[in-house]
């Protein structure tokens, strides 16, 4: 075949190839793109910056109902309440305070209300060295036992901070002890974790290898 007679043949072949490709693309012979399964949006509780508990200080800031903290609605003034202990020297929590779980420390010996509360004025706290503190100024009281933690907290290395790292640019906020720790039961409670990463397809089940 010379060039002349080759040309139409090549053209026809190319046309057929393009037609075949056009058909293939038109019919999507390479497979349709599989639509992705839309992942559910994460529950807003997992992106909330709220602290673990709502402390007295936050209640003041929120202008919430503070009647629970009005000790002298029930207690008598100038008459320190008496504490009762069972035979194992554990405090018997009176029914009126049944919401209080006495679990401060694993030793179980921090069981006297007046280690921290002031028996002469229940609206105040007291330290070992007889300093009187308001309920919203608890860190020095906590720090009187937890010295290293208090030092870390003052440096910003313990506890939650928010706002501005650059103090010149804006307000720096630091949570206090009771924003996260329940003073009567300070261990951080366990919680439900946010959802795990969603893989595009399920991971293969690997055989479980026993640990030695």
């Amino acid at each position: 075949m010379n060039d002349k007679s080759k040309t139409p043949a090549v053209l026809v072949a190319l046309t057929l190839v393009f037609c075949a490709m056009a058909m293939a693309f038109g019919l999507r012979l390479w497979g349709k793109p599989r639509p992705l399964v839309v992942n559910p949006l994460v529950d807003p509780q997992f992106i909330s910056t709220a602290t673990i508990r709502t402390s007295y200080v936050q209640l003041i800031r929120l202008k919430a109902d503070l009647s629970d903290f009005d000790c002298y609605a029930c207690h008598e003034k100038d008459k320190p309440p008496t504490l009762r202990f069972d035979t194992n020297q554990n405090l018997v929590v009176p029914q009126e305070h049944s919401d209080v779980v006495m679990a401060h420390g694993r030793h179980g010996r921090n069981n006297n209300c007046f280690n921290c509360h002031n028996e002469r004025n229940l609206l105040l706290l007291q330290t070992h060295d007889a300093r009187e503190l308001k309920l919203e100024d608890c860190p020095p009281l906590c720090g009187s036992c937890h010295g290293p933690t208090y030092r870390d907290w003052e440096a910003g290395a313990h506890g939650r901070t928010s706002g501005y790292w650059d103090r010149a640019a804006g307000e720096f906020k630091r949570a206090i002890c009771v924003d996260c720790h329940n003073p009567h039961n300070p261990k951080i409670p366990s919680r439900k974790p946010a959802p795990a990463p969603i893989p595009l397809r399920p991971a293969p089940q690997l055989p479980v290898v026993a640990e030695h």
Partner: protein
Amino acid sequence: MNSPKPNGNSNANPGPGSGLNRRNFLRGSAVIASGLAALAASLAPLRELEDFGSIDQFLQKYYKELTPEEMAKVLKRIEDEVEREYGLRPHVRDLKPMAGVEYVYALNLTRCIGCRKCVHACVAENNQSRTPEIQYIRVLRLPHGSLDLEKAEHNYSPESVPEKGYFYMPVQCQQCKNPPCVKVCPVHATWQETDGITVIDYNWCIGCRYCEAACPYWARRFNFAKPSIPKERLNPNMSYLGNRPRSRGVMEKCHFCIQRTRAGRYPACLEVCPVGARKFGNVLDPNSEVAYILHNKRVFIQLKEELGTSPRFFYYFDV
């Protein structure tokens, strides 16, 4: 030679198959027309390039070559594009590094309870794709008593955390002083800024994924599909090198919330951490939290420090 005519005569004596007569003209036109139509049809997949963007975007210059006026135009164009797509006018800025600032992150492994709130706060802050899912932070669950990453598990989903016998180690971009990802980028689309943050120009990235392969921390994420962000969850506080919506085929990664930290704020993952395990600040300021931690706490690792990457992300213990 199958042809009956010698080559030299072909011009003088055209054969029955050549020459311009009615039949040949029609045949030739039909072949050419169907060929062109088939060519057009075979290029049809190009029409599905939905996120090609605009000509301006295509012709945009490299980040470091943009003059302030050009950058202002680019930022406005991005705001327009985002508004058209999400129906919400964002505020896109190009924040520059501050003088005398070097960011360092410290994470307290004693405190972390593995609740993954940081992961999702990061997704929300940085406009990451929800489908398919892109997350900058990977929380590893490790058995007590070792730091063998081979035993790490990141798909754990128990009823409650922390679990007995395990500790948790969130891993994200370590903002290395000696970043392998920057070295391998063939187009200089990623580089280290003076405040220590390694950034990506999403308009310059060609999506070769070399950096993803080079990163020993698996910190870089690739947009295999067009990211999908629900309109109601779009964060309108954006930055050019940070959390503006990405397109398909570009890399992204943690940038220490550049849109917040360069404005003086804490990163989103730090603010959301319920136990205060995350600490961030300017290590050059001796009064900062991170300087205190590096001086006084048991800072035990930079992750994989034997690789010489020298991360700006430190893990420490309380006791």
